[in-house]
């Protein structure tokens, strides 16, 4: 089976998304009061116009690639990453989820320090000692600024509370 060009995939995904938007997300997610006098004032009108513009954009992208002369597939700039690229991406996704969840339990400062250290491990940074220092110094400094200067109540955990 011939490999489809990236733009065709993108166009198809965009079109499918637009259809889902027009037929599922807008009817379910946008409510219009009965008292609307004119369709042009309805809260549904704007998202619907956008949905069809996205659909047309996706269609034109597919059409441009199929009917016009083919644009080369620009894969080279992402090719040949260091070994384990997909694993690192997955690890980053897990790290982000963990970072978010950890804020509620251990507070933003310690969650940030932990996230910093884990990220340097994922990257395999050579600067381990510096990483350890920055991992704690940066969140503490940022906390000091936001909490004491800007008056932002940075979430604190249940275990170690900062002044």
């Amino acid at each position, binding site marked *: 089976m011939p490999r489809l060009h*990236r733009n065709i995939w993108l166009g198809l995904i965009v079109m499918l998304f637009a259809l889902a938007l027009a037929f599922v997300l807008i009817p*379910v*997610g*946008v*409510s*219009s*009061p009965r008292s*609307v*006098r*004119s369709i*042009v*004032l309805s*809260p549904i009108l*704007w*998202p619907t116009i*956008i*949905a069809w*513009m*996205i659909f047309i*954009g996706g269609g*034109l*992208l597919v059409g441009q690639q199929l009917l*016009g*002369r083919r*644009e080369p597939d620009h894969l080279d700039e*992402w090719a040949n990453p*260091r070994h384990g*690229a997909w694993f*690192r*991406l997955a690890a*980053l*996704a897990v790290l*982000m989820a963990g*970072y*978010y969840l950890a*804020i*509620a339990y251990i507070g*933003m400062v310690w969650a*940030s320090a932990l*996230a*910093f250290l884990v990220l*340097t491990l*994922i*990257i*395999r*940074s050579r*600067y381990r000692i*510096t990483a350890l220092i*920055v*991992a704690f110094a*940066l969140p503490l400094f*940022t*906390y000091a*600024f*936001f909490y004491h*200067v*800007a008056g*932002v109540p*940075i*979430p604190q955990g249940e275990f170690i509370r900062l002044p």
Partner: protein
Amino acid sequence: MSFLDSLSLGFGLVAHWQSLAALFCGIVVGVFAGAIPGISATMAVALTLPFTFALPPIYGILLLLGVYKGGIFGGSIPAILIKTPGTPASSATVLDGYPMAEQGKAGKALGMALYASCTADLISNLALILFAGWLASFALSFGPPEFFTLILFSLTIIAGVSGASLLKGLISACLGLLLATVGLDLVYGTERFVFGDPNLMGGLNFIAVLIGLFAIPEIISFIWNPDDSHDKVRSLGQHHVTFAEYKRSFKTIVRGSLIGVFLGSIPGIGAAPSAFLSYSEARRNSPRKANFGKGEIEGVAAAEAGNNGVAGATLIPLLALGVPGDVITAIIIGAFMIHGLQPGPMMFMTNADIIYALFIGLMVSSVLLLLVGSVAIRLFRFIADIPRSLLFPSVLVLCVFGVYAVNNSVFDVVVMFLMGWLGYFMLRVRMPAAPFLIAFILGPLLEDNFRQAMLMSGGNFEILFRGPITWFFWTVSVISIVALVRNELRERRSRFAEEPA
């Protein structure tokens, strides 16, 4: 209030050490961030924004403008010393800057880059002061139909020129418009894409979307291929730019500045096209055109004048019409809103003191840029040595703190992460993020003005063509779409013609 009254009030606001300190800090942050390969001026402004919440509006906005101006110049340092433009706008500087560095004249190239940048910045600021007030007084007569057509025109340009593909730019802008509809409806107060979640009722937080789109994808890209190495940093050498060389390039600098002013005042064009146009014009008119590309100092002057000439001019549509000229001014418009200010013609009436304080601050920024820039050039070796394996984790932490601080909401952190993955996907499929962000900002204004116009006319579309101003914007919108499609087709044709059969 007379011009002199406004000026003296503005002077009263800006004549404090805190204003100058904010501007100075902003320029330092901008120059250093712009000089670090991988940290763009956009990211620097986005990351600085949360730190301005605690400041009075004038200090906060001056700080951001300092980062903006510093970032644009800072990008030229790695362009000359390691052949890696710190910002896209500095790409044209590489053409002659790096060959000069190879010849041992990096100090001369950087000196000219700095002087050209400061001169262009000054000219651009003067243009801003001259034209913004005039344009704002003209725009005072705009009603919702005029604003609707103006924003539509801005969107057609922005969607078209922000990336390699017109269609992808348009799709990106549509996605931004769609995301802007999340929240309560402006007229009826009914829910749109809220799905029962109270966090979504106020719409998505602009800062979370912005940082998600412009900072997180850079982190993810680094994770994909982590690499701490960079090209060899060239030494500054013993050669320094002389007054005679500056004088010889002065005409080129002024021409480049005027090109920057003209292109910068049109929403969406940005600094990179201006730098390249200024460079090509300098090359066309120079008696030493054969030297261009081989280390010609006038080439560096032209490129830098072109990209810095944009910096003040992009603020003309921002301040006078409330329409951002590029991504960075889109961020700055967000900063105005966060500080309770709405840029546009009315701001010249209600907050004239702040406007004039900004004008004065911007003029001062050109001088401060000269001071900070000359120090940064000497310190670049240390800036370039900051390991990226520590830099990007630091950026992640700053993003989380900054986004949380806007609304004290952890939900915004989730939005930022999700937008980050979307931004990374867009990066991989070469879909530009700039139209997305600008449409996200302009979307509510576009819809609001459209619906207000419809309310005024009882649903009659004729109101959108009610006078010469609306007709003007409809006409230029159509012209811009036709020009964009023509350019796209021409570029595709020439791209295919270059490919071997």
